[in-house]
């Protein structure tokens, strides 16, 4: 009892502010972007955020690179869809609002089942095995048309039962808010998970598995438990996307989806909790918005990804944080000039690359529609040499500008980082 007197718990203003702003963002965004297209885009971002965060539980927090995470979200989506159809048929009573929970439980169940096998290994073998399990589930999905619906997949109608308080989930905006609420609470739950003993042990297993074994923990168990939790959230994401699209097909468990979530998470950055959120937003934007303009969007995404791996392995989130650090040490001014140079070089270079890719794509895939390809509003004749000369000169010119600019930037950047390190240690000493 005297213990109660000693407790001092100030209100964590920063935390309440951040979560409050997140909630406001979820509430407010559809009011600003209120066209039909942007609502579907936002809904998709919501489900992808949950999916990418659940993936990062493995990659960022436990150091497990999975190539088959879509298995759990996809199977969650299938079970949600079957539950929805059972409700429509009157065989089951369950509020649609909580249907993603079915997906989550299905995901967790398969996490228990497959995870037992996959988590026997870590590192590279784990990655290969998850790929194998993913392929197995995908191949079986075409073998059981009764459950998976064969090539066409299974469809459903989310508007079932009496509307509750006027919510029928017919209009897209209602589904968005359903996803937003689920997404918000999933983010909170997954963030809370990082502070649990299991979440902490996961970090330890990532950093030094040998030492964890020494202390007496079973690393395989830790990996397995984390995988189960992660597949629960992946299942929720799958269930939500099933409600959003009202169709689930074998593609939902495919390697394409698994690869997609990996790209999203890594581009956002696996080192920080909020990284995958940024990654999911960028990825959905890439895959939905960019695919409207060009058929080569996957190529751009792949190039972007490889460049990130080579030059910014911490992802976008670490880039943002590192620049913020430079800003907080008020040294950003010195970076402005090098940034401008790199920027100009990068724009020239990417214009050249985009032109070459688009024109080649046009020649191989779209040649029946004439030889003219429109890029950024300009028309180029892919059969003539003028367009190709412009493209190659942009490419070489960009390269000639970019490379020295990049070197200059790296020099300034590295000196600034060194200065910051020195100042930080000085502060510590004082």
């Amino acid at each position, binding site marked *: 009892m005297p213990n109660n007197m000693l407790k001092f718990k100030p209100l964590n203003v920063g935390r309440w502010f951040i979560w409050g702003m997140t909630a406001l963002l979820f509430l407010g965004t559809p009011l600003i972007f209120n066209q039909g297209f942007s609502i579907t885009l936002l809904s998709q971002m919501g489900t992808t955020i949950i999916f990418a965060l659940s993936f990062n539980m493995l990659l960022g927090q436990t150091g497990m690179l999975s190539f088959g995470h879509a298995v759990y979200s996809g199977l969650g989506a299938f079970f949600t869809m079957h539950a929805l159809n059972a409700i429509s048929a009157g065989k089951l009573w369950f509020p649609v609002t909580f249907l993603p929970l079915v997906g989550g439980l299905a995901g967790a169940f398969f996490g228990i089942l497959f995870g037992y096998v996959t988590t026997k*290994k870590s590192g590279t073998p784990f990655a*290969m095995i998850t790929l194998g399990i993913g*392929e197995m589930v995908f191949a079986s999905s075409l073998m059981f048309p009764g459950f998976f619906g064969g090539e066409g997949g299974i469809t459903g109608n989310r508007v079932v039962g009496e509307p509750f308080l006027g919510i029928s989930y017919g209009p897209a905006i209602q589904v968005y808010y359903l996803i937003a609420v689920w997404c918000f609470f999933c983010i909170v739950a997954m963030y809370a998970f990082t502070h649990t003993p299991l979440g902490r042990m996961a970090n330890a297993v990532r950093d030094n598995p040998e030492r964890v074994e020494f202390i007496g923990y079973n690393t395989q168990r830790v990996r397995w438990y984390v995988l189960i939790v992660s597949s629960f959230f992946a299942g929720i994401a799958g269930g939500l996307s099933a409600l959003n699209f009202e169709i689930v097909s074998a593609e939902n468990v495919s390697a394409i989806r698994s690869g997609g979530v990996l790209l999203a998470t*890594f581009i956002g950055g696996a080192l920080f909790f909020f990284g995958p959120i940024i990654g999911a937003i960028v990825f959905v934007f890439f895959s939905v918005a960019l695919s409207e303009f060009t058929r080569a969007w996957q*190529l751009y995404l792949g*190039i972007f*990804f*490889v460049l990130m791996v080579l030059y910014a*392995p911490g992802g976008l989130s670490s880039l943002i944080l590192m620049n913020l650090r430079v800003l907080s040490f008020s040294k950003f001014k010195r970076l402005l000039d090098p940034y401008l140079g790199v920027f100009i070089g990068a724009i020239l270079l990417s214009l050249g690359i985009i032109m070459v890719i688009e024109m080649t794509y046009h020649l*191989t895939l779209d040649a029946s529609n004439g030889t003219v390809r429109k890029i950024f509003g300009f028309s180029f004749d892919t059969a003539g040499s003028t367009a190709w000369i412009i493209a190659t000169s942009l490419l070489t010119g960009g390269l000639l500008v970019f490379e020295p600019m990049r070197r200059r930037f790296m020099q300034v950047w590295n000196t600034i980082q060194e200065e910051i390190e020195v100042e930080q240690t000085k502060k510590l000493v004082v």
Partner: protein
Amino acid sequence: MDIFLISLLNGLSYGLLLFMLSSGLTLIFSMMGVLNFAHASFYMIGAYFAYQIGVWATHLVGPNTGFWIALIIAPLAVGLIGAMVEKYGLRKVHKFGHVPELLFTFGLSFIIVELVQVIWGRAAVSYRVPPILDGPIEFLKDFGLTFSLYRGFMMIVALVMLALIWLMLTRTRIGLVIQAALTHPDAVESLGHNVPRVFMLVFGGGCALAGLAGVIGGPAFVTEPAMAATLGSIIFVVTVVGGMGSLAGAFIASVLIGLIQTFAVKIDFSLVDLFKTLGIVLTEKTPFFDVWKLTVSQIAPVLPYLLLVLILIFRPRGLMGTREG
């Protein structure tokens, strides 16, 4: 009996092709700890290069010469690309650890598939067996067997190639350096050998092997943008089943999976039939009838992965592997 022998030969030739891929993958893995996710992509590039060389050769040299030119040039070109990838890409991410290396090759496989689609289109290209090798083997016909001459050629190329590699690894100086660098890279480096260059050679060599597999595998299967993904996951299964980093294990697993996949598609036998012989009749009303009615040929695509799961449960280090984890 005939079907059995033919399937055996088909399975062997497929298994040998798998080994041409998995041997390179295993060598690279055991040497550098890098799992080359893009390995099957190099196989695909090999096939497409061979197709392109065939098209050019028809114009420049004469009809039906392309395949033989490609047999030599395409693997060399693929190997060169592989060496460049190692030198300018992989070496840069090496300092970040194994996961970024894996991610790099994953991104690379993504780009390669897209580039192939940009250059050669999304549909399959008509890369065909050269006329000399078309048709069945005549002398086997006397025994009542029809086995494709091209499949036989595939087996011979694979065996010759593997014998050469074995000789190179065990009998030449560079082979001994490679073998030493597999286990003791630091010691080899302090003896004055350029280990990064050895790595580049091995990576390029492994990719060249994959390219050669592409040249001879392309006409036997389909040359299309999806061919890398189809084979890629299978060769990963092979390396895990055989034991990570074990060449002998990779060989056994390749042939095993080749045989399993070839035989499985020939067997129209389901659990329903099995129960029937035991006197139990299963009908549509039996629970999980979807599972019981599946024939072996229907589950053939899943069998390699089932084997993977079984191996992991009962022998986690693989058939010939030496280490766990």
